[in-house]
């Protein structure tokens, strides 16, 4: 207990500097600014804004990225409530009752409850990270190469099983991602792999180019395609009068927020869990235990409060596996790993031991960032509303220019811009063929780490593959992976899962 307080105190002393507070504020603002744009979810937002953090010191960069992430999350909710255009799947649920409330002239109350719910959930989840982090990292420090390999395999498969869509196609995307991750000079032998004599490729394909192409560019392409059937201009933005929720609103929302927080905190830790699953589960639960379920979909405030708390708690909790094990539980966390690597930090349990200031500073900044979101975003909601009225045909070229300059500035290399274009085309192709690109990114980021651990494990065991099943932790993780795979392949479960995602 005492250690927890002293750790948090260290964290606040790092986060509470003028520089880091500014980075946190800029991150939360920029994240909201981009995240509020219709059709751009947190993943695309983080991918687009990554380059601006790279010139910052490590703690500032990660604090800003975290701010961008939950800012984008919150911006997405604003768009769903006011415009009924969910930026990404975790806000789909918010749009159901949030937009219904906005149509009844209660947009302000919906926005305020979303902010309050998110803030509460964020506070709880932040303390959760501080409590669960150290023991988990302690366990992970005993991991050898074999355990790490199995853990990454478990993380990859888990992320696929819990996400929506066809499992076999997602597994194929992981394998393709792993393969792309191997491009570049082989660390051990120095041989160039798939480099085709292009010097820029010897360091591998830049992960920002992959992420920005697959998620940024491809998303804009599909948005434009969809926009052809929608009338131009966004006149349907709902007006916001008065932000204060009534006493009755607060009273009805109390328990849903609490339940959402609990659901989100647990699901966020699971690989692949994250915000989407959390908000869906919370909505389903609230609807099921409500006295009058027919109110849902017609502006029930519980349908905003619960899911919003759940998705913020999950977003926060997904930092737990990242910070303690070095394993991304969703694609946004995979981008965080990439950002850490660029800053010269190897994600994993040693971060907490070797750089406690960075670790605890980041956790403290999450809490500060959540507070900032509440105090800044509610008064600023008028600006976001104006932004929603800017026609898309002005927005997308501007976004594209910022992306291109950002990509170029990473290595001052035009080739990186070309790779973004290539991955944009690939991303569009995947959309057209019904493949989710997110697992590809996970595989791409984890590929080099998995290979390194696989090689090391086999070197230690003198080429004996049994090492993975002879070590108990590794065996346990492999069994868990097999069980997960078996579960989704069994027909009866598969049917239930499809129904769950239909809902």
């Amino acid at each position, binding site marked *: 207990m005492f250690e927890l307080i002293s750790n948090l105190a260290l964290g606040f002393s790092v986060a509470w500097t003028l520089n880091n507070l500014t980075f946190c504020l800029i991150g939360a603002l920029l994240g909201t600014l981009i995240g509020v744009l219709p059709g751009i979810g947190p993943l695309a937002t983080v991918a687009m804004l990554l380059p601006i953090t790279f010139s910052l010191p490590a703690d500032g960069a990660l604090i800003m990225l975290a701010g961008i992430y939950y800012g984008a999350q919150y911006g997405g909710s604003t768009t769903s409530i006011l415009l009924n255009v969910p930026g990404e799947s975790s806000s789909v649920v918010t749009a159901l009752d949030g937009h219904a409330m906005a149509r009844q002239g209660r947009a302000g109350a919906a926005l305020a409850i979303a902010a309050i719910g998110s803030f509460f959930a964020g506070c709880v989840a932040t303390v959760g990270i501080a409590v669960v982090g150290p023991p988990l990292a302690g366990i992970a420090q005993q991991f050898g190469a074999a355990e790490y390999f199995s853990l990454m395999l478990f993380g990859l498969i888990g992320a696929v099983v819990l996400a929506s869509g066809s499992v076999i196609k997602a597994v194929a995307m992981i394998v393709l991602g792993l393969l792309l991750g191997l491009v570049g000079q082989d660390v*051990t032998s120095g041989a160039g792999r798939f480099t085709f004599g292009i010097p820029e490729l010897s360091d591998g394909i830049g992960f920002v180019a992959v992420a920005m192409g697959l998620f940024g560019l491809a998303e804009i392409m599909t948005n434009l395609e969809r926009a052809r059937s929608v009338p131009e201009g966004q006149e349907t933005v709902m007006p916001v009068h008065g932000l204060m929720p009534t006493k009755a609103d607060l009273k009805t929302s109390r328990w849903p927020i609490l339940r959402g927080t609990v659901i989100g905190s647990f699901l966020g830790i699971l690989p692949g869990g994250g915000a989407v699953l959390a908000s869906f589960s919370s909505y389903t639960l609230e609807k099921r235990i409500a006295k009058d379920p027919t109110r849902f979909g017609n502006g029930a405030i519980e349908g905003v409060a619960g899911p919003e708390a759940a998705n913020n708690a999950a977003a926060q909790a997904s930092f737990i596996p990242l910070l303690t094990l070095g394993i991304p539980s969703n694609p946004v966390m995979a981008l965080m790993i990439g950002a850490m690597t660029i800053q010269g930090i190897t994600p994993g349990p040693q971060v907490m031991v070797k750089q406690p200031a960075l670790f605890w500073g980041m956790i403290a900044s999450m809490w500060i960032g959540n507070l900032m979101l509440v105090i800044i975003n509610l008064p600023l909601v008028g600006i976001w509303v104006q932004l929603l009225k800017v026609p898309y045909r002005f927005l*997308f070229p501007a976004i594209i220019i910022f992306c291109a300059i950002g990509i170029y500035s990473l290595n001052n290399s035009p080739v990186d811009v070309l790779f973004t274009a290539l991955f944009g085309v690939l991303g569009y192709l995947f959309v057209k063929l*019904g493949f989710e690109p997110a697992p590809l990114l996970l595989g791409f980021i984890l590929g080099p780490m998995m290979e390194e651990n696989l090689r090391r494990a086999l070197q230690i065991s003198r080429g004996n593959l049994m090492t993975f099943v002879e070590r108990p932790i590794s065996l346990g993780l492999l069994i868990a992976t097999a069980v997960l795979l078996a579960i989704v392949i069994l027909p009866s479960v598969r049917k239930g899962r499809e129904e769950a995602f239909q809902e």
Partner: protein
Amino acid sequence: MIKIRNQQDLAGGLFLMGIAALAMYFASDLSMGRLVRMGPGYLPTVLCWLLGFLGLIIALRGFTIDGPALQSWAWRPLFALTAGQILFASLLERAGLVAAIVATIAVSSMAAPNVRWVSTLLLGVVMSVLSTILFIWLLGLPLTIWPNFG
């Protein structure tokens, strides 16, 4: 007569098999090594087989499980945005930031139907000014603003 029941899966599976075959070809001159000391070609080869196998299953599913047909492609956004990026990459260092931005915006704007040239040009000017202030003056990126005729 065999009926294709899921065009997306068939096409997707074939696409993955093609990538696997191509990657296998390019990995063929990398040394494999053995399990105890893997060469640079070991994992790529294993992954290519796996990818090809998964591609095959996905393609075969195209004959057994009903699914969506191939959708038409929106060529306009695809071409305009890709061309915009290529233009930006090739112009930036030779012609400077302003020319690259204006050209990229002009080409990318064609992604949306009915381009309005005046407002597009205006957007190009605004973005040039903003980017010059933000990226060159404030962030100090080593970019040139105007073409270098020297």
